[in-house]
């Protein structure tokens, strides 16, 4: 997962230069810490039924930026989480720990 090597902003969509510090060097991190700010369960799409047990979530990344993930399970808005390379979401107890 990419993040800015200078200020660690790591939102999406991808940029050539960091929107916060204008650095153009990007690194790669294993996981990002953030907070769930929205969720939704999709039950129908393009005429087909879906598994609502795999909700979508909008994550506000602690270092800066937003990412949309899948497989949010029953996690609620406000939950502190980490998102890994496979876009799996894991709750954490204290972001500052």
């Amino acid at each position, binding site marked *: 997962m990419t993040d800015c090597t200078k200020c660690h902003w790591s*939102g*999406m*969509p*991808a940029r050539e230069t960091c*929107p916060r510090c204008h650095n153009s060097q990007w690194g790669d991190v294993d996981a990002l810490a953030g907070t769930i*700010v*929205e*969720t*939704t*369960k*999709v*039950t*129908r*799409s*393009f005429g087909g039924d*879906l*598994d609502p047990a*795999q909700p*979508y979530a*909008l994550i506000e990344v602690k270092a800066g*930026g*937003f990412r*949309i993930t*899948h497989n949010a399970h029953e996690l609620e808005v406000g939950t502190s989480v980490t998102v890994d390379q496979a*876009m799996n979401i894991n709750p954490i107890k204290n972001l500052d720990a």
Partner: protein
Amino acid sequence: MIQQPPSQLREVFLIGTGQTDFVPSHRAEQTTHELLYRAAVEALNDAGLTFADLDGLAISSFTVAPDHSIDLAVRWNIKPQWLMDSCLGGASGNDMIQHAQQAISSGSAQRILVVSGDHFAGDDFKDLVENYNMSARTNFAQMPGMSPNTLFAMLTSNQMRVYGLTKSDYGSLVVRQRDWAAENRHAAYRKPLSLTDYLSSPVIADPLSRYDCVPVVSGASAIVLSADKCAGKSVRVLSSHAQHNPDNQDSDGLSTGLAQVLPKIWQQSGYTIADIDVLSVYDDYPAIVIAQLMDIGLLPKVDVSESLARLLASQQPYINSSGGQLSAGQAGAGAGLQGVVEVARALTDQGPIATHGSRVGLVCGYGMVTYRYGSCSNATILERA
């Protein structure tokens, strides 16, 4: 034809409109090219012109590919001095008007046909969603069920929490637009809809249910813009401006670029929001209508539920008086021009009876989801000539 550069900027008039029926895509039988042609011919007939009278052409369509405006110019025997292909989806109608107005007023063209529409066959719409841009292709490819509904469901949840809105608030807007659709012979859905119908409809992506999600249809719209007024049924294009990417996709999406566009519109036209008789607000989702009504200044950010009810009841201005896309349907990129036709017809007494006599109208465009919400906003103000 050789045009001399005008010594001063010329006025621009909208002198003809055309529109096909909007048909749910699975039932539509006409191709994109056929739909665009039909709308174009109707607009030209309305203006009393033929293709040979044009020296400019602008098109917007997702499914006209691999063709572009020059291909349609050849098919339709137009010899343009000015061409444009807009790829701004729901903002394409105003995008084309903004540029065409400048072309005509500066003398680059005299008469421009603006046409927009789509037909989605088979997996066309699925392909469009999955390959909308690099962001969708790379970020959402492995996410089953990802679509604009997913994104705007999350935006709607946030709007409900921030402003204390309920499903019934959104429903009141959707039901009011369905009332308007009864008078629009082109609308895909005209059957009356009650709030109970709305509230009991199946959930698509919570909190969005069926009637919150714009129905995909096939259809096309067209207008003719000219330096010459057409007696009795012309609409003056007063001002058209845009603000794209206002926040770099780094805010909550509850405000659009309209807030930055409108001061220019008011300054250039001499009108204010209080002067607007008919208003078309881009309505792919009710939450986006509410966001734009706030940006326009018609809806305060406190007591939103009560204010929305009062605004809809007041009919000052008439909002989405064709039924909007939520009832007429969203004909792909053509949706960007549907509101223009709606307002132009209202200003020439061709819209719903209640809107007859309207003098000033505003059309707001919105679109192009670059990650979480639309990145394009624009507006055009029109006046009965």
